[in-house]
């Protein structure tokens, strides 16, 4: 930058170049720094979706909170759903700061969720009909989340990277809690093992979908590529899915469980897992709010938002005593 020339006098191209130089040098972008609109919009989209997914993600497990089959499990799953809600809150705060210059608030995030404009993760649209599902969610969905979130620990956006650091630390406990449920069931009665296998069968395709399609051609969406350019993320969807397979497939097999995909195997030549891909048209349907539990879970939040309107009004009008 020329000495004596302030940043605001630079042309848009020069600002952009300065911004790209910073992120390429590994610097963190902070909320008050200049950033291209496109970068801001990518962050808002990604972080509000992530935040709201944490919040919606507490709902399937909440179904199992009272039913958890021992005091110890009850305490553990209560701690877990509380963490998820806390992650949601942390992330929405990050998103809110990014949205502030656009005149938008938490209220807009909630409205966008209710209208279906703001999507949440495919996995949280699905049924969780047994305690085995609670185990699979904590073990494999949280395990998948750790893999995709760890990749962004070095995200170019400072507040997101810092929030993820805390979130990942807690997710590790969640995955351990899930693994402990799974182990107890795998070593249990034939009924417990069957319950576990059924849950794995139910969740497998959702887990493949969790990381998103291999390339833009499946969904016509290039957000992942953009986010790599902006150094918000560092790996492709397929890189992450392969990492997940490498970590979890041997563990699933070692428990004597069957993966509901006869074709799945590791190809030594390409050093890649070969597997049956998900039905991506179904994925689109699910995340558009047409999954088996999408509307039920959204209704829970819509209803409580409406029922508690008087509380928000009361807080806004609070008199000092």
């Amino acid at each position, binding site marked *: 930058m020329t000495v004596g020339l302030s940043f605001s006098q630079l042309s848009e191209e020069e600002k952009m170049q300065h911004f790209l130089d910073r992120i390429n040098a590994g610097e963190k972008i902070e909320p008050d720094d200049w950033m291209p609109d496109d970068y801001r919009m990518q962050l808002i989209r990604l972080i509000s979706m992530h935040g709201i997914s944490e919040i919606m993600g507490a709902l399937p497990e909440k179904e199992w909170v009272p039913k*958890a089959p021992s005091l110890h499990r009850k305490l553990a799953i*209560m701690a877990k759903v*509380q963490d998820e809600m806390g992650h949601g809150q942390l992330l929405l705060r990050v998103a809110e700061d990014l949205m502030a210059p656009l005149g938008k608030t938490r209220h807009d995030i909630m409205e966008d969720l209710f209208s279906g404009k703001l999507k949440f993760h495919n996995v949280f649209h699905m049924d969780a009909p047994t305690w085995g599902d609670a185990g699979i969610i904590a073990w494999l969905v949280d395990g998948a989340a750790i893999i995709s979130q760890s990749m962004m620990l070095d995200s170019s956006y400072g507040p997101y990277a810092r929030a993820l650091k805390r979130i990942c630390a807690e997710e590790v406990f969640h995955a351990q809690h899930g693994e402990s449920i799974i182990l107890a069931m795998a070593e*249990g009665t034939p009924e417990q093992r069957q319950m576990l296998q059924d849950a794995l069968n139910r969740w497998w395709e959702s887990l493949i979908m969790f990381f998103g399609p291999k390339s833009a051609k499946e969904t016509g969406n290039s957000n992942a590529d953009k986010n790599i350019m902006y150094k918000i993320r560092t790996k492709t969807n397929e890189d992450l899915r392969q990492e997940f397979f490498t970590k979890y497939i041997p563990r699933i097999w070692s428990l004597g469980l069957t993966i509901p995909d006869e074709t799945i195997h590791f190809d030594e030549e390409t050093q890649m897992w070969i597997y049956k891909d998900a039905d991506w048209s179904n994925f689109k349907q699910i995340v558009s709010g047409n999954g088996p539990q999408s509307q039920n879970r959204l209704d829970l939040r819509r209803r409580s938002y409406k029922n*508690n309107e008087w*509380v928000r009004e009361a807080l806004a009008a609070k*008199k000092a005593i």
Partner: protein
Amino acid sequence: MTQETLKPQEKAALIELLYQMGDDDFILAFRGSEWLGLAPHIEEDVAFSSISQDMMGHANLYYRLLEDLGEGEADRIAHLRTPEQFRNAIILEEVNGPGTYLKEPDYDWAFAVVRNYFYAVHKQIRLESLRHSSYEPLAEAARKIMTEQYYHLMHWEVWFKQLMTSTDEAIERMNAAINKVWRDFGGVLTLGPSYADIVKADLIDDEAVMKKRWMNKMEAVFKEVGAFYPGEPRMERGNGRNGVHTDDLKQALSTLSEVYATNPATGW
């Protein structure tokens, strides 16, 4: 006193008291957990779920003390008793509102605040008394619980005072909740039929003394927020300490034990 020095009559009284306190926390923690994702805002969801988890932990502590006294495994205590064997106060088992936690929950936040606040005030008084309990393991548990209870009480007090001094609608809803809770809150303030033995064994203060403390505190708070103090709380639907309960408890227990009861002998 320790487990070894307890006389049979003292032991029976202690067991009764532990069931009362354990069941109070267990059932209200369950009602709290049903609120997850439905609280007025996300920050409250985080706080309330933390409180519910703490309370479930407190119930667990009491159940462990019962286990030590030969009442069977804590998990069986929590999951396999019939409703008549539960000793919690009736107002604590009451549903949060119409609907269930899975379907169409029209939960009442005013009821949640009032019930939890009134209970937290009583729990604080109870714990302060238990710190000097003649049964040392109980005194120790009380000291541990108090470190968390301090925040619970503060949390619900802030909510209570804020809503009681806000919009007309909030005040109206809060008053309706106060009336509802007042009709049965007497059930929380009693030590039940074993009352004389519990007090005689010096396990906790006399229920009349603790009730007076609770009423004094309530009267002061009502005055502070400019509300009418309704006098002594009643026990209209019976005494949960006697095993008298409503269908709400039956429903709660069948949910709480749904998975465990399928096979209590196996590891979960």
